[in-house]
């Protein structure tokens, strides 16, 4: 049990939990059992069936309800006299500003995505409230402590960005199943069922622009009276047949590559499906659109079973028909959702047919769903362990036991006899753009890139800002907010479409931009460097942001170099599309003069590097003493 001292720290503490999912359920239970009496929970999600194997506060009857609320009610059943407040809301909402955060003694994260973690990190820094951060994947997990000025912040090391693929690999030369999934989900599905106004690279890029005739684009338009099956077959033949054929015409592409095989519906499917089984008429439609499925009517039961080309083709056509028959209203604004059964079926089938064409091994619906939905596997035990470790760190934070803070790794295989490995936290990175005020460097083509590209690809995607504001000198180029008048909005929208050098206050080589997010209370400077060319394969964004990644190794042994390559980010169902088994390169050992070993450091050894996992410990960091 806790000591007297711990007990009083616990009793008087007010804590904020962000996330009531896998880690959150375990955390709320352990907090309540440990004697915490004042807890707020924020979670925007509702309960789903696939949560029930580990989010033990939820039952089947709760599916569809707010996680935060149900978790609260469940814990109050065994600890009725404590105060739990639930917020069924997005932590990024403006009501959760720095002022809101200031009422708490510590913030505990049990989140599932990088974006929200970064946002909470910034608010904790702005409010000067300690943060205990956590993540799990499979049997692995970690807990870290972030206290402003004492330990590194969550963003002192850059986190692995979601994997992106060069456009041409997806559109023309896939070599892995994941490429086919991205094509099926981001291009084909989006083209057929998503927003028609979005740019879409679905059609093969041809060297001859004349090939891209008007007619080809119109293939995707369905005439009012066009038979759905005929339409489906037309799409099928276009994307798997004639498109492949067109690509094959470009001999240069296939010199060192395996040539794909065009597939036409008539070679795979019988003349007419409707006469055979009339699927669309008697399909199993239950309540809720997400339950619409073609599998039962096609006699496909096991999601782990591999479908052949014919089965995939049937699923493709039938799923497409079903979208038009039962979900017509949604067409035009659908986006892929892993919990949308019909969408998963369609994407699985389309990806498999494409894989067949390119000689790539096919995958089951279960596997395809995992890849398409970026599903990170999760088990209850790891979440329970991690939640216990979070509470232990939270108590230290409340007692301000700074020299006892630890970050702890939960390992799959023991390293130096340890399954739970505590290591001392790292010092803040002096070149972190979030918790220090170090400027960033942006290489960009100032003549070609538009302000919109800068906002989307850098300010939002890389810097994780929610409500950004961009200034160049005294001139305000862009901002987002509710209180803007129409003239300003029109002005900013016009700016978005201009190249950087054409802006009212032109951004050129050597310009210094100020980028701010008022909600996150984060401001940073960006030094702009003009650059003409970018490598399409390696730098698909057409711009490169750097600065906080490599801090210069300055004078003597006190220089704290921090390295980002081995940033650890294990998440429960994260949005990071990285296979957890992938081995990541780890950096060279830091020069002796920079290494500071303390008694506890023995734990951080090379054994850890052998784990086939994203969990890597960088050696290039300095510990808090």
């Amino acid at each position, binding site marked *: 049990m806790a000591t007297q001292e711990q007990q009083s720290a616990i009793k008087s503490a007010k804590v904020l939990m962000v996330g009531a999912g896998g880690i959150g359920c375990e955390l709320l239970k352990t907090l309540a*059992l440990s004697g915490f009496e004042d807890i707020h929970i924020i979670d925007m999600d509702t309960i789903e069936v696939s949560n029930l194997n580990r989010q*033990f506060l939820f039952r089947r009857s709760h599916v569809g309800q707010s996680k935060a609320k149900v978790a609260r009610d469940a814990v109050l059943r065994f600890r009725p006299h404590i105060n739990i407040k639930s917020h069924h809301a997005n932590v990024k909402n403006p009501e959760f500003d720095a002022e809101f955060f200031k009422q708490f003694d510590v913030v505990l994260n049990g989140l599932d995505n990088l974006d929200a973690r970064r946002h909470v990190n910034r608010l904790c820094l702005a409010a000067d409230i300690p943060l205990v951060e956590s993540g799990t994947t499979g049997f692995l997990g970690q807990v870290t402590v972030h206290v402003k000025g004492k330990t590194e912040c969550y963003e002192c090391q850059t986190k692995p960005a979601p994997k992106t693929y060069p456009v041409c690999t997806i559109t023309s030369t896939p070599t892995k199943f994941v490429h086919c999934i991205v094509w099926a989900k981001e291009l084909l599905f989006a083209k057929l069922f998503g927003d028609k106004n979005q740019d879409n690279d679905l059609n093969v890029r041809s060297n001859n622009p004349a090939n891209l005739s008007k007619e080809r684009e119109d293939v995707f338009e369905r005439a009012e009276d066009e038979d759905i099956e005929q339409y489906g077959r037309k799409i099928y033949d276009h994307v798997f047949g004639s498109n492949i054929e067109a690509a094959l015409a470009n001999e240069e592409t296939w010199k060192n590559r395996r040539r794909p095989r065009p597939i036409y519906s008539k070679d795979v499917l019988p003349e007419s499906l409707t006469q055979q089984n009339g699927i669309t008429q008697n399909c199993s439609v239950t309540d809720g659109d997400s339950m619409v499925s073609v599998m039962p009517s096609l006699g496909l039961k096991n999601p782990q079973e591999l479908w052949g080309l014919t089965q995939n083709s049937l699923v493709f056509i039938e799923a497409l028909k079903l979208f038009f028959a039962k979900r017509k209203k949604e067409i035009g604004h659908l986006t892929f959702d892993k919990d949308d059964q019909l969408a998963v079926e369609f994407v699985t089938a389309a990806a498999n047919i494409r894989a067949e064409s390119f000689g790539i091994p096919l995958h089951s619906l279960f596997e395809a769903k995992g890849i398409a939905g970026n599903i990170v596997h999760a088990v209850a035990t790891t979440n*329970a362990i991690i939640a216990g470790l979070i509470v232990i760190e939270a108590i230290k934070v409340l007692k301000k036991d700074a020299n006892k803070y630890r970050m702890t790794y939960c390992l799959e295989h023991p390293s130096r006899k340890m399954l739970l490995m505590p290591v001392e936290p790292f010092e803040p990175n002096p070149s972190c753009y979030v918790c220090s005020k170090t400027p960033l460097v942006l290489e960009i083509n100032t003549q070609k890139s538009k302000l919109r590209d800068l906002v989307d690809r850098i300010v939002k995607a890389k810097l994780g800002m929610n409500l950004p504001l961009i200034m160049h000198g005294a001139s305000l180029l862009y901002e987002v907010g509710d209180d803007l008048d129409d003239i300003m909005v029109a002005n900013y929208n016009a700016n978005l479409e201009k190249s950087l050098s054409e802006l009212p206050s032109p951004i050129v080589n050597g310009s210094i931009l100020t980028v701010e997010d008022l909600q996150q209370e984060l401001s940073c400077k960006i030094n702009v460097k003009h650059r003409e060319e970018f490598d399409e394969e390696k730098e698909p964004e057409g711009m490169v942001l750097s600065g906080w990644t490599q801090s210069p190794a300055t004078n003597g042994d006190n220089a704290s170099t921090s390295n980002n390559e081995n940033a650890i980010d294990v998440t429960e169902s994260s949005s990071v599309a990285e296979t957890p088994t992938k081995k990541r390169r780890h950096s060279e050992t830091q020069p002796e003069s920079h290494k500071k070993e303390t008694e506890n450091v023995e734990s951080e050894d090379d054994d850890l590097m052998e784990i086939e996992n994203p969990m890597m410990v960088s050696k290039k960091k300095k510990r808090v003493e």
Partner: protein
Amino acid sequence: MDGEELTEQETALYDRQIRVWGPNGQRRLTKSHIFVSGIKGTVAEFCKNIVLAGVGSVTLMDDGLVNEDTLNANFLIPPDDNAYMGKTVAEVCSDSLKEFNPMVLVSVAKGDLSTLGAEFFEKFDVVVIGYSSRATKKAVNEKWRKLSKQVAFYTVDCRNSCAEIFVDLQNYKYTKKTLEETLEYELHFPSFHEAITIPWKLIPRRTSKLYFAMRVIEVFEETEGRKPGECSLLDLARVLEISKKLFMANSVSESNILDSVLERLITDTTEFPPACAIVGGILAQVLSRFLFAFNLLLMGNLVIFTREILVSQEVIKAISRKGEPLKNFFYFDAQDGKGMIEDIANYSK
């Protein structure tokens, strides 16, 4: 491979964990039968974890009546004395566990652990003994070792913020496959009695202090006729005396290195809830990894301990991916935050 496929309902419910251990791993879990005795915080956490994971059945034994004390760290007991009055801990916990996962059969067994016959354990794949005296652990372990069917045996104890897990898989064989060859390994697990009576001189110096501290506490409780966990700071002098004697008997000199940890272990024996979550999680994890390998061996009509063992591809995958089973002690202390595996056996024999 082994019989029925997972149902649609199972696949949907267990989706995220099937992505960790595969459909075969899940099938193996659903065919495992677990016996658990002594349900306090850590064991309650363990039970929650295995019920959620979807084992075949869990049989609970704890005839203690529910009262204020049993509520500590045990979230399976709602604090409503109208609901639990006159009921045993096992009965109340069983009701709560059933709700977590209707697909798992949770039941209560009555009786006294130390007088149960060996045949009782025949129907289980795993036996977990929580918070028992040295004599009871030893007696059950010995009975279990004589069974024709081999099951896994675990004990778990958590006091204050420290915990010990003991594992006995007897002679456990497993294979690891490299690209060229299949290597066969055999692990010999000492019995509980053997593991706690190894001369201390033979135990490596850097072994967790908790191993020794737990042995001292066991001797104290046995000689003073105390129930497990029944002690207070008033007993410190007596406990330190026993510690000194044990060090002397073992011809090991640094007799006071245990003093501070012993003091913590006897001043307050109630469990620290975060430690329960952690140790209950580790025990469930250790057990599920064991099951993936073990059940498959039994299912192929192979006797696990014969020489000429033929192991299917599945087992190899399960074992080589999950590594060796934990051998044979695990220690956790919330104070330093380390979770250590200690292999304590008499290797000189």
